[in-house]
């Protein structure tokens, strides 16, 4: 993530005073185009939310918090995000370390496996999950297997969504952690720590994790953004986390749903800011 890596400072620009104007002009143009691309839809959305027959009104924003289902769906999404982040990191990081240290030849295999969810369309993915979840013949009704399937689909906290999101998040988490692992000499650090008497868990949490802070923060943020915006899987499995709720509310209260979208955008930005501050290296 570009936002997490400090940009190189153009300290030598002043050495060529004649030439610096032109690149600067282009920079402004590119920035302006990008800004237009992002800001126009947002401004239009904002306009829509405050447009009122009487003129200007912030009522839509006031209604967000009282809208039925807002708090529960948002909390569900956040809880799903936290659980997904925990599971995907606990799964991916040890696996990537093990492959790097013990079986470097398997790295391409791991990379392909982790990238696969990008290739498989979510609709295919969810169709498969749905089929599996519907499998439940009567005679299995009293078995722990059946009860597990039921528990996975508990609407208060659908574990099945966590499992699905872990798969969907893998490509991003893999990329982010891979970049972080490339930046440090993992093998030497691990061996140095082992040589100092550290057990494997100690190596993991005292050596690897602190030195992968920004990569872990990046992976967490991407996962969070994915879970907060995921619609297809949740909708087709009939759960109601935040994105599904936004679509639901838009049917009855169009202005509120757009206001909520802008609100969630703001929320995501705040989280990004927090993550990039937390992941920033000590100077």
């Amino acid at each position, binding site marked *: 993530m570009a936002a997490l890596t400090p940009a190189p400072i153009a300290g030598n620009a002043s050495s060529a005073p004649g030439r610096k104007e032109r690149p600067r002009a282009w920079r402004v143009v590119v920035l302006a185009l990008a800004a237009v691309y992002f800001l126009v839809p947002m401004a239009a959305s904002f306009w829509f939310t405050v447009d009122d027959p009487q003129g200007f009104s912030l009522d839509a924003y006031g209604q967000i918090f009282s809208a039925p289902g807002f708090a529960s769906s948002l909390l569900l999404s956040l809880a799903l995000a936290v659980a997904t982040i925990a599971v995907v990191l606990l799964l991916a990081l040890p696996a990537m370390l093990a492959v790097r240290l013990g079986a470097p030849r398997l790295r391409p295999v791991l990379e392909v496996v982790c990238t696969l969810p990008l290739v498989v369309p979510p609709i295919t993915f969810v169709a498969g999950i749905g089929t599996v979840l519907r499998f439940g013949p009567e005679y299995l009704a009293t078995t722990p297997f059946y009860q597990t399937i039921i528990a996975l689909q508990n609407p208060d906290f659908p574990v099945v969504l966590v499992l699905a999101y872990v798969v969907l998040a893998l490509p991003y988490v893999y990329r982010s952690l891979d970049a972080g692992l490339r930046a440090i000499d993992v093998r*030497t650090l691990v061996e*140095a720590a082992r*040589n*100092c008497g550290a057990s494997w868990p100690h190596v993991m949490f005292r050596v690897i994790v602190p*030195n992968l*802070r920004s990569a872990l923060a990046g992976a967490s943020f991407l996962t969070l953004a994915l879970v907060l915006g995921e619609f297809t899987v949740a909708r087709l499995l009939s759960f109601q986390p935040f994105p599904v709720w936004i679509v639901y509310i838009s049917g009855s209260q169009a202005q509120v749903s757009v206001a909520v979208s802008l609100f969630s955008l703001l929320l995501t930005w705040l989280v990004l800011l927090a993550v990039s501050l937390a992941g920033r290296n*000590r100077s």
Partner: protein
Amino acid sequence: MTAPVTGATGEAVTEAAAGARVELRGLHRRFGGTVALDGLDLAAEPGELLALLGPSGCGKTTALRCVAGFEHPDEGAVLIDGRDITGVPANRRDAGMVFQSYSLFPNLNARDNVAFGLRVRKVAAAKRHARAQELLELVGLPTVGERYPHQLSGGQQQRVAIARALALEPRVLLLDEPLSALDAKVRGALREEIRRLQLSLGITTIFVTHDQEEALSVADRVAVLRAGRLEQVAAPATLYDRPATPFVAEFVGTMNHVPGAASGERVTVLGQTLPVDGPPVHGPVDVLVRPEAVLATPSAEGTATVVASSFRGSIARLRVQLADGAELLADVPGHDSVRLAPGVTVTVAFVDRPVLVSAADLEGADS
């Protein structure tokens, strides 16, 4: 380095670090199709600095990693003071290691890096900080404790790494080409400091290097490895003067190859007959002669010509072309270099000492 062996608190820094005996017994290690160790037998005596020297791929680093526990031999055993530690995990071995690449933990400052092992052992914070400070003083860096690795120079980082390796008072110190990433000047200074430290602590040390000068200058004994086997282990002077094999002769120092004719225990080379060092041989051979054993004397009747001379202070190294076009290197006293300028004709003779002979040209010798 001027820091004393005792730290700030006055007590000896390493009481328990009386050196252990390290023994490698019949080590075999194979990586896919490559043989890294092919039955290596070697022992480092208590308190000794043993250098492992050899060309890249000779197995020296693999041998060291077997002692550290990062590599596991397919066959054979590693013993410390007679105890077989082959199956002991790396984090429970009594050996501190310094790595070739910079290995300090980037997220910890120098003091916490040194104290890392003490923290693993749950030593109280005040105690481990004091100990880390002592060790930093020991390696000549009393003021860098608060700095992070990226704020230290390469030489400083390696010194901190040495302090870290010594923090748990290991009985064996393992150095895996610790100086190879440093520039020449720092390398020379740090090399001497390592030796000084090692002597004062009396810790058994195994020093892996591909640099023969480094090995000869610091080690008590040097073990020359080739293709996973031990060629010779001896004190530096012995290694240089009495190499056991042509490979060692070639790898350690500079060697001239001169064609000669052997007949039993004598060999005739450039009209001079010299004793053969080793078993009797017959027929045409390569005679191996050090540059300092070549005597070049200015003479009008000489059949050889000086073609180049490089002055090195106390000596000058000449390149001398023989009548048949072959070239020899000869070291002469520096003050003779004026009389032996390029273009001067000389006679060439050899110091009358036993010489090594080899049947054919050698492979795999780099220097």
